[in-house]
């Protein structure tokens, strides 16, 4: 595993509510169906339909916090964009195939963060450790412990997702 991988992120909270779909929520439908996977194409469109100008505010280390049922659909385009921006994701819940797609892109994501939307406000300074589940809201001076990324999947995340993991696997084989 990449030993220097940054499991802990500290930055601005970008808060969203429940039921934000991947298609026409996280990213526009044309970007998914047009099979755009280059972060250069994705980043300007990230959350643009529901929060115009998001990509101008987003910066390395920032954390997206969402309510229930985030990112409906098995597609990965939006997570590629979040990952390229160096962001993390904390959700009250997301469909399993969406969670799988996010991890497969190497995104640091915690699913099942119960009631987290009640613990943060938009713009709070927050911190999360994705390998321990530790969460701190520095603006509110509160903390909480969530379930971390399962240990058996951390190597894949640290290597940049399933493609990075495969590349490493192949090198190890030969």
């Amino acid at each position, binding site marked *: 595993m990449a030993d220097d991988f940054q499991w802990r992120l500290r930055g601005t909270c970008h808060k969203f509510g429940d039921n934000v779909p991947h298609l026409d929520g996280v990213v526009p439908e044309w970007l998914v169906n047009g099979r755009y996977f280059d972060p250069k194409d994705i980043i300007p469109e990230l959350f643009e339909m529901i929060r115009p100008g998001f990509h101008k505010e987003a910066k390395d280390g920032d954390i997206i916090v969402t309510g229930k049922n985030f990112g409906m659909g*098995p597609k*990965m385009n939006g997570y590629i964009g979040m990952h390229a921006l160096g962001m993390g994701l904390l959700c009250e819940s997301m*469909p*399993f*195939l969406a969670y*799988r*797609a996010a991890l*497969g892109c190497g995104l640091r994501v915690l699913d099942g963060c119960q009631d987290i939307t009640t613990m943060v406000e938009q713009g709070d300074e927050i911190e999360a450790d994705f390998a321990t589940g530790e969460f701190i809201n520095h603006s509110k001076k509160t903390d909480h412990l969530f379930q971390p990324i*399962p240990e*058996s*999947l951390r190597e*894949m995340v640290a290597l940049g997702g*399933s*493609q990075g*993991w*495969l*590349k490493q*696997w*192949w090198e190890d084989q030969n």
Partner: protein
Amino acid sequence: MGMTAVEKILARASGKDTVKPGDIIYPKPDFILVHDGLVSPSKEQLDNLGITRVHDPDKLIFVTDHEVIQLSERSIERIQKNREAAKAWGVKRFYDAGQGGHGHLFPMERGIVTPGTFYFDNDRHCTSVGGIGAIGFRVGAEIITVLATGTVWTKVPSTLRVSLKGTLPKGVYARDIGFYLASGLKDGGFLQAEMDYRVLEFAGDLEQFSLSERVALTNSPTEVRAYAVFVPPSEEIIAYAEERAEHPFEPVYSDKDAEFDGDIEINISGLEPQIAVTGSPANSVNLSEVAGTPIQHAFIGSCGSGMWDDLVTAAKLLEGKHLAPGVRMFVVPGTEDSLKRLTAEGLMGILLDAGVFVLPAGCGLCSSNPLGPLQDGEASISTASANERGRFRGSRDADMYLGSPATVAASAINGKITDPRDLL
């Protein structure tokens, strides 16, 4: 504590005595099935990573079902690249266009999929094999990891049990149950069940269902996010599988003390034929609510209704009749074997005399090939797996109704949505 059937199948595949929901495992599939849309893109991705071989070519099955007829430059190029990929990787079981048919169906007919089989697939409708008591898990684009390494991380899903009680009335079919069930299982549906990444296991009075009906049962729950559907195999199903199995197999059943993540009971004795109105198979209503709605387009086929018995049901209704004026109808046998059987058993003549187009075996219109698109203002009734606007590569201003094969055939004869019981 015992295990559900799917937990047992996964435990066997991952070399463990037991597994439980939430466990992360690395199951070794009996085989890996890739459909035509993802063969050459997978090859390209693995080539880009410098990965030059697959884990075990003898475990790979490549099928050509989504684009049996290549209607664009892109698809002509793709199928050629698929052939090259199969050759480069040494994949012997490459089913080219015109060979095999629908990848979710012909492996059951050919004895490749048997009760208890576990495999990985890139396409979500691999749930169809639950009809024979097998399990396919859809991994989408992560199929490349499976191709390279022979497995991929898998979370053991929990299982919801749905017991069907009673006997289905004449003229009402398993596909009707599927639509009804989907409307209950969808988010906010009347059964108030959360289906995300869950297995749906059927129980109850299942002896009445043939293999095609069991396959039909699996289809619409898939559209409301069931990750797998399992129908415990009856003696009739086991006998069917034994006749053609290419390997020994052991049927699997849930233990009596297995833990289910919910139990639902549905009485099917009073069920009416269902119609799923435009938008989703879960938009199910009693047929009587939309009876008489004019249709101009009909299609029978897809992974939900492309088995032999589905074709027989349609042919019986169409025998000696003709499509209503202004109606065009497409029948797509699921498999090459069924296509041959249509001719051998005289059903082809019935369909052609009725004015039906019979297209090559595979997904047919349902894979959004422009084989039979709709125009603005038209209405289609079909057995497709889904019915969002614009499906079949047609107008988004066309209505897309779904029904059982009998309902579709009856409606095509009358030119309007028709209760098949009126013609039986």
